[in-house]
């Protein structure tokens, strides 16, 4: 089914959920509310978009948009080689949404990455822990209000001296 058709079909099917449908660079983008992402993606998967090519997030703090956080799903239909982007919007005060790990196993680590860097909670995820930053890391570094140079975490290590080698050795 061509993406334009599927867009109008999904809009009919979930009138409460779909915020907008736009096109950019020849690709269809479906904007939905984050709370209903699992039902939308289940329907899309049944319609032939069987492959989750990528899952990532955007912080709209300086960009503006329906809500502050966007989780973006890039779907691919292997049969017709057509692509569809689904953008799920979730508010700043309660950044949580259903996990799609039950649909695509590949979403497991990608949702962990989004959680690690943006602090978005995926309900129903089997193992939602940090994937790249240290376990005791504080904060979500890809949020736009996180300082680029960090909060001293890169300067906070014990200093090892030369041991039995004296410091006044020749330079």
């Amino acid at each position, binding site marked *: 089914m061509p993406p334009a058709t599927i867009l109008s079909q999904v809009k009919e099917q979930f009138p409460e959920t779909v915020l907008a449908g736009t096109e950019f660079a020849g690709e269809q983008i479906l904007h939905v509310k984050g709370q209903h992402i699992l039902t939308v993606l289940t329907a899309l998967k049944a319609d032939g978009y069987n492959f989750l090519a990528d899952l990532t997030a955007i912080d709209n703090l300086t960009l503006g948009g329906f809500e502050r956080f966007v989780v973006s799903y890039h779907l691919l239909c292997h049969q017709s080689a057509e692509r569809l982007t689904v953008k799920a919007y979730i508010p700043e005060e309660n950044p949580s949404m259903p996990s799609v790990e039950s649909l695509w196993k590949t979403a497991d680590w990608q949702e962990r990455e989004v959680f690690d860097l943006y602090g978005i909670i995926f309900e129903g995820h089997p193992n939602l822990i940090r994937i790249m930053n240290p376990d005791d890391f504080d904060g979500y570094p890809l949020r736009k209000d996180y300082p*680029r140079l960090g909060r001293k975490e890169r300067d906070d290590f*014990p200093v090892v001296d030369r041991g039995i080698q004296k410091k006044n050795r020749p330079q």
Partner: protein
Amino acid sequence: MIHDDIKSNILTTKLEQFINWGRKNSFWPMPFGTACCGIEFMAVLAARTDLSRFGAEAIRFSPRQSDLLIVAGRISIKMMPVLIRIYEQMPEPKWVMAMGACASTGGVFDTYSVIQGIDQFIPVDVYVPGCPPRPEGVVEGLMKLQDLVGKEKLSDYDPVQAK
């Protein structure tokens, strides 16, 4: 007769110089390659700029068997505790080479997650600039380190502090 044999077979030197001569001509490097500098270091070991000409070809991937730590690549905040642990596992005497811009200063990666120079936390003896350095640069750095080791004093190693 005996006296002549001895004259042609004995060299006199200072113990300190003899020890330093042995140390500097037989480094046992441990490569800590985390980025493209690690790939470049393989080229240093290959035939064109052969490190075995300097006695440093015995690469050991165990810190307990090596005395020269070559940090080749950027060190993230998650890797720094590992690097500190590995440095502490190396037996004395030990030396550290910071290979490339990232290990020396953080390079272009001025972000929250990258250590801005490993010398903030572990002692570094020789820095090799470049991104990544040419193999000739690494050889130059190794020769500089050989000079440094050749000038060391035995009294630099204080057994009282060693406990």
